[in-house]
């Protein structure tokens, strides 16, 4: 069991200048094979133009218990969202 191929997280950039997006995981012996496997597994329907792979153990994540302190402060900063501002229709698209 110690010989199991490590788990990799796969991020793919779609066709249209978007950022890389997490699409799923797979197993591979190393980064090079992970990229090849990602091409075969996750772009079977032309889904991507660029692939990132990160070994799952190297991903540091925030703790779910900190959800409140991390994200709630931004809830009060409603001015960060464009819908906060009323712009008269006459001004046109903005």
């Amino acid at each position, binding site marked *: *069991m110690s*010989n*199991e*191929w490590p*788990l990799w997280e796969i991020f793919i950039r779609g066709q249209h200048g978007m950022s890389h997006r997490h699409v*799923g*995981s*797979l*197993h591979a*012996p*190393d980064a090079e*094979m992970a990229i090849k496997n990602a091409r075969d*597994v996750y772009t*079977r*329907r032309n889904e991507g133009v660029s692939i990132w792979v990160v070994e799952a153990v190297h991903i540091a*994540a925030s*703790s*779910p218990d900190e959800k409140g302190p991390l994200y709630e402060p931004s809830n009060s900063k409603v001015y960060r969202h464009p819908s906060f501002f009323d712009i008269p229709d006459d001004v046109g698209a903005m």
Partner: protein
Amino acid sequence: MYAQMVKTAGTGVKTPDEMSDQERAFQARIDAGEKIEPRDWMPDDYRATLIRQIGQHAHSEIVGQLPEGNWITRAPTLERKAILLAKVQDEAGHGLYLYSACETLGVSRDELIEMLHAGKMKYSSIFNYPTLNWADIGAVGWLVDGAAIMNQVQLQKTSYGPYARAMVRICKEESFHQRQGYSIMMKMAFGNAAQKAMAQDALNRLWFPSLMMFGPPDKDSVHSTQSMAWRIKINTNDELRQRFVDQTMPQMKYLGLTCPDANVKWNEDKGGYDYSDPDWDEFFAVLRGNGPCNKDRMAARVKAWEDGEWVRDGLMAHAHKNKIKNAAQVAAE
């Protein structure tokens, strides 16, 4: 349904009074339609049940490659061959997505595979039936994928985030599977006499096993309540089975094929078809290992795994050597 007869861990649904604070908060999140994510707190029984259910679902995809794979080299045209191969390949992909979802619960893919091979985990009963003529490939797509999709569409809304996301991807990719099956059925049912006979033969053999995919009747389904409270099961077995029969009968009529169940009849009052139950003794016999293909299916999977060990180890050893080589290079610079 690729996960049938999943035994729910635990002792049954607890009332709010019986729950700990954590359990109450957890249930409240589920009731509010929130998704549970891998690092969130969850009851041990929720985790254990999900591992069983997602694992069984993943195993079904992988074992499910075999009955259809059986016809890849015999597909009758180059186009049919390519479509079938692409479809069976998709099943492998779906197995991979589901194993990945299961791995977020703290169990490795190799562990899951070894539990399957040791007979400690199950896969859907349907894949223990043989594909005997080319129309079976049509009927599998039409009926088996049809039944699976019916279940999987619901599971896109399941409470466990990674499982729900895998389902979204799978449903998107599967949309062509049922259609390719039906398109084969049309060619066969509207073809020459021999083809028509193959189509009817395939339907005769696969109709009741397809109904079994939804699991035993609700009255005998002891594990559903807790799983439904956790939203890892959304509809009851009988609801989905009824929906499947109602959807399939007009399609069968269009093909001009005869349902092997002589009792199938439109019931105006309930706005659905009446139909006969499959033989549940047969269902349990298949689950216990006595279906027509259980031994062959498991033998094929175990052989692939054991024969592949030197390949997995070899590629891993090479990666390890490279890592050491690269580290030495960096150190030297």
